[in-house]
């Protein structure tokens, strides 16, 4: 998933009150920032690849595992419990959003078995080929477009822009 992550992260922020026991308001700046940062955190594994510190095969390994999500939540919990629960939800939703890719995710790292729903072929971790290749396939349009439609409905229900 590429652009769809924007809609998914925003949709997660719309559930902030339910996920945090009312500590954070839906679509508030805090909810959006926490959701976005947590949601994008796994994809920062491309930075060491760009810097040539890690191999291409580093992408979608530790950063896309449940142990990573648990560590992030444990780090955030002493700072703010709301951030921890919202961040954990965002990370798990990120994994679900990436699972339709053929490359699969090693959710149970260090056990290296990869789990995939295999709806679209993986096109690499970054770059124009990855982007273009993603949108040459049907299921990415269906699911990512669906995420934006879902976000529209959530915005309507929560009466935020464009429904103010």
């Amino acid at each position, binding site marked *: 998933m590429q652009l769809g992550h924007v809609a998914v992260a925003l949709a997660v922020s719309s559930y902030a009150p339910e996920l945090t026991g009312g500590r954070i308001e839906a679509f508030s700046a805090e909810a959006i920032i926490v959701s976005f940062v947590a949601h994008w955190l796994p994809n920062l594994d491309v930075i060491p690849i760009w810097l040539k510190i890690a191999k*291409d095969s580093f992408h979608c390994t530790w950063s896309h595992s449940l142990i990573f999500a648990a560590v992030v939540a444990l780090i955030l919990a002493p700072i703010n419990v709301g951030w921890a629960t919202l961040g954990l939800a965002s990370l798990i939703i990120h994994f679900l959003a990436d699972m339709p890719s053929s490359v699969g995710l090693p959710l149970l790292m260090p056990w290296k078995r990869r789990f995939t729903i295999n709806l679209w072929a993986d096109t690499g971790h970054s770059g124009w080929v990855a982007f273009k290749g993603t949108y040459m396939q049907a299921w990415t349009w269906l699911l990512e477009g669906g995420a934006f439609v879902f976000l529209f409905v959530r915005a309507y229900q929560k009466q935020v822009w464009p429904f103010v």
Partner: protein
Amino acid sequence: MLKRTPLLALMIGGVLAILIILIFENPARPFTVGQGVFLLFLCWFPGMGVAMLFDPYAQKAREEFLKINFYEEKK
């Protein structure tokens, strides 16, 4: 991509937009025309996904990408 695919997407998106309005619209807060048009625009994207399921070019692209391993070490 077949020429019919974007048009088919528009029709599927239209049906999806109507369904969403029927299911989620609150009679006390009806969608404005602008919001309806925006919804139709958004629904075109998943509609495109459904239409591409019936497009052989999209299927071929998937099969071609499945042959490539983007993570194997470069020699």
